[in-house]
């Protein structure tokens, strides 16, 4: 089965039809997506700013991780779920836009950035946790994350722009 056929099959599932044809489904899910974004993104930014030594400097990085991560991951789960629901409304249409493809690629990069951080710099966190300044490699991770998330928001905006709600 080709990707096009898979997208078409998703498009024809009863769930997708319900999502597409319901009057309130799309507005409600999109409202949850955007309202969650408006706090999730802030937590991401604050964390990245801490890695860049630009905010919350008087708390150790380990403490900031510990306090912010649960809320951050909770928010990310809601973003993924509502995002998947929005996508399920019309998979071929979403996939046809360049912004959707870009957004998915950048989302993967942002996740990869987190994984790479955890298996390398994160492992050695106790070594640099007490330093007055974060190491340069840590700053680079924070900067990459910040850049990727701003571009992900821009791409998401782009999708909504070329694919106005029905």
């Amino acid at each position: 089965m080709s990707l096009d056929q898979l997208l078409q099959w998703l498009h024809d599932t009863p769930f997708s039809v319900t999502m597409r044809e319901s009057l309130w489904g799309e507005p409600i899910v999109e409202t949850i997506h955007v309202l969650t974004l408006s706090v999730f993104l802030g937590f991401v930014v604050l964390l990245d700013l801490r890695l860049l030594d630009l905010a919350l400097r008087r708390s150790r990085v380990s403490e900031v991780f510990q306090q912010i991560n649960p809320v951050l991951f909770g928010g990310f789960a809601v973003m993924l779920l509502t995002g998947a629901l929005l996508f399920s409304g019309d998979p071929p249409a979403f996939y046809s836009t360049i912004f959707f493809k870009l957004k998915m690629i950048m989302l993967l990069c942002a996740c990869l950035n987190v994984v790479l951080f955890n298996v390398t710099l994160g492992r050695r966190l106790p070594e640099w946790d007490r330093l007055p300044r974060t190491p340069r490699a840590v700053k680079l991770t924070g900067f990459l994350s910040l850049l990727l998330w701003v571009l992900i928001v821009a791409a998401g905006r782009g999708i909504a722009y070329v694919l106005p709600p029905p």
Partner: protein
Amino acid sequence: MTSLQSVLLEFCRWCNGSSFGHGIRDSVWLFPFIETFHLVALGVLGGSILLLNMRLVGLRFPAMPLRELACELRVWMAGSLVVLLASGFLLFCTEAVKMYGNWAFRLKMLMLVLAVLFTFTLHRRLTLMEEARIAAAWRWLAAALCVMLWAGVGLGGRAIGYVTTAASALP
């Protein structure tokens, strides 16, 4: 029509006809570009406000003094609010007259004024007080009010698009 209404309508007409109103309307990509700034700043403001209120009721950063976190977040809150207001004004200028008659937009502006007033006056003073002197009930009340006011601004903003769609569908 009262004089306030006519002044507001006149202001909306001026915005609509202004050079940036025209410029953004005539450009394909300027609107989503400015909207991206609006969204990113929204994220920073929303995250900072939620974090501060979670600290106020003791859910996050229990080891950090409330006043310290409040001072730390203040610059990000104020900065993101400035970006939000500036980008929001530019977006408003593209369809200011349409917004004048949009009840969701009016609701959003009302909530915005209340949210800004509350957050930067009473709420701010509370977060700068000596913590031990604030009763738990006051903390929860202030945190709930603050979060609800800002959520109201967000919901009003979401509704604008749908109200516009409904109105433009009329004959």
